[in-house]
């Protein structure tokens, strides 16, 4: 189910002003830390005086307000950051862990996939692991080890929830929900959506500021949002790809093709209702993800929609994703590698005009 448009409008009408994703996430952390003493932050370079508030400034100023007891700078030890957070969560805290780049989560994979994700199950439901692991993803001309998209990996692990907001409003509301969730949540943030450097060229000049209301709100997990309604083709995307899909939809509209764009917002739990309802209505589905094509989250969506909506579809389910190579460095290669407004609109057009 998507949030009704009216609610979004009301929210925007009462907004004090626009803010960046970084500011929205910081506000979520600050509010939750004020609300609940058990919320602590654990990560590298997140609270150092004169430092930068984490790799992307999200925690800037929080150590000043909450002290180093609650904003804990760690050694460069991603496995321990994840595992200590999971252990502290079992022990009654609600840690929000922080790695500088999502790529570093591979170092912590055992602690996330074997420990945090499975403790509840192995204990027969006796314990819970209320932790959040924040991780920046997305390619930004940093090459193969600082630009991956990892949602598919974590979506595959039973016991982990996965959030991937595309804008400041969702970022704040979903992060607050993640912190209050009694399960481990992997919280992906796209580097080009942080907005700390304004509308960056790599992001295609997208609007990184968004309305964030003054009053408190939470966004439940498992509720996708139809960000643009349309009748001809459904485009499902997350993170940066939502923005590119919306831009592609605008181009398609110029030639009379009305694409419906769905921001999936959380991959676990996944809002199958909204996606399948839309696919049955438009009869065509395009999935857009920044991750490598093979085994990405889009493959799961394609499989399920193929299974649940077979009789409704007029065309094969299509995917636009990164090719199955590491993330390249050269800007010219990276631009080719990441799904673009052009590649999205081209495939969508093909879907609509060929079937």
């Amino acid at each position, binding site marked *: 189910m998507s949030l009704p448009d009216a609610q979004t409008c009301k929210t925007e009408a009462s907004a004090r002003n626009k803010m960046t994703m970084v500011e929205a996430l910081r506000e979520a952390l600050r509010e939750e830390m004020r609300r609940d003493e058990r919320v602590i932050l654990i990560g590298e370079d997140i609270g150092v005086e004169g430092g930068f508030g984490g790799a992307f400034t999200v925690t800037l100023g929080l150590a000043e307000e909450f002290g180093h007891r609650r904003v804990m700078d760690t050694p460069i030890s991603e496995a321990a950051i994840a595992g200590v957070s999971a252990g502290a969560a079992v022990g009654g805290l609600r*840690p929000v862990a922080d790695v500088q780049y999502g790529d570093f989560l591979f170092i912590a994979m*055992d602690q996330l996939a074997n420990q945090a994700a499975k403790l509840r199950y192995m204990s*027969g439901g006796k314990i819970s692991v209320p932790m959040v692991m924040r991780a920046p993803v997305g390619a930004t001309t940093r090459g193969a080890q600082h630009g991956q998209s990892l949602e598919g990996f974590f979506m595959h692990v039973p016991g982990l929830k996965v959030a991937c907001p595309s804008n400041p409003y969702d970022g704040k509301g979903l992060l607050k929900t993640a912190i209050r969730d009694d399960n481990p949540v992997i919280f992906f943030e796209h580097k080009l959506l942080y907005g700390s450097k304004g509308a960056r060229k790599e992001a295609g000049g997208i609007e990184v500021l968004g309305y964030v209301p003054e009053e408190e709100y939470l966004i439940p997990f498992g509720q996708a949002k139809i960000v643009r309604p349309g009748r001809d083709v459904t485009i499902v995307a997350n993170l940066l790809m939502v923005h590119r899909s919306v831009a592609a939809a605008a181009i398609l509209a110029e030639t009379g093709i009305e694409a419906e764009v769905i921001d999936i917002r959380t991959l676990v739990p996944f809002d199958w209702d909204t996606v399948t309802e839309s696919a049955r209505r438009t009869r065509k589905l395009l999935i857009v993800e920044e991750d490598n094509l093979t085994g990405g989250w889009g493959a799961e969506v394609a499989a399920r929609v193929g299974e649940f909506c077979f009789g409704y579809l007029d065309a094969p389910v299509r995917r636009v994703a990164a090719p199955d190579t590491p993330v390249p460095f050269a800007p010219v290669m990276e631009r080719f590698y990441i799904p673009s407004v052009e590649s999205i609109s081209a495939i969508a057009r093909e879907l609509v005009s060929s079937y």
Partner: protein
Amino acid sequence: MTETDLGRGRKLAMYRRMLLCRMFEERVYYMFLEGRLPGTVHQSAGQEASAVGVCSALAEGDVVTSTHRPHSHAIARGLPVNSLMAELFAKTTGCCHGKGGSMHLGDLALGMLPAIAIVGGGIPLATGQALAFQYLRKENIVACFFGDGAANIGTFHEAINMGAIWNLPVIYVCENNRYGASTAVEKVMKVKHVADRAAAYGIPGETIDGNDVEGVYGAMSRAGERARAGAGPTLLELETYRISGHSRSDPGRYRPQDEVAAWRQRDPIESYEKTLIAEGHLRSEDAGQIKASVEEELDEAVKYAEGSPDPAKEECLTDVFA
């Protein structure tokens, strides 16, 4: 070394607890051979003094973390034998409702995190639990068991360093039983003692005879006192030996027979029995009675486990999320 503050009652309790560990595993092993239990087992026969010595020094609310070889830790921590046996039988009445099995025994409410069967995987979790104790200003400590094999995996370094810099109330207890599966510790470690590595983290390290239950109790008590006072972790290395193979199917041919024989001579239970008799705390007929009472407890546990219901197969779908 031997602690003198232990009264007769405590000494006999430790003796009985070690017997319970040993006889529990003997029972379990035979039942596995008979095909009455699913899965596999990693036995800890020979290492009971370490489990019981450490856990006897713990207080209510303290937490133990364990490994793929957790039976004795769970018994030493005082988890009900019925629920442990039932878990091995994969019954709903097991401590993990049949979702854990031998390698994940535990019950946090009773002071033991479900055992972590990835080598070294529990060390960060133990450190995090200790962080929670410190943050919540509790006086509790964590006893983090792991083997010599875990001393060479990355989480050992990352987590102990973090525990050290934050002065967390956690005792890192390395049960050095001289083999990681079939690989002798000398082949995979250049330093002589795991505890030598404590210096690298700026915390105390101590290598002691892990087969001397009172010595283990004493060392753990001192380390625990230090941790409760806010002075941070200790790396305790308990030198011990598993008399049994690595797992159910391991006959242990990689170990020299004379080495096994020599360690059998140092059996922690037999030697403690002799000590208690020499100290006048135990007569050999008392020992027989205690063993008989342990047998009875185990009979009861097996009966309880066998009589318990199997979980409904659909229960595999629950407890993924809170």
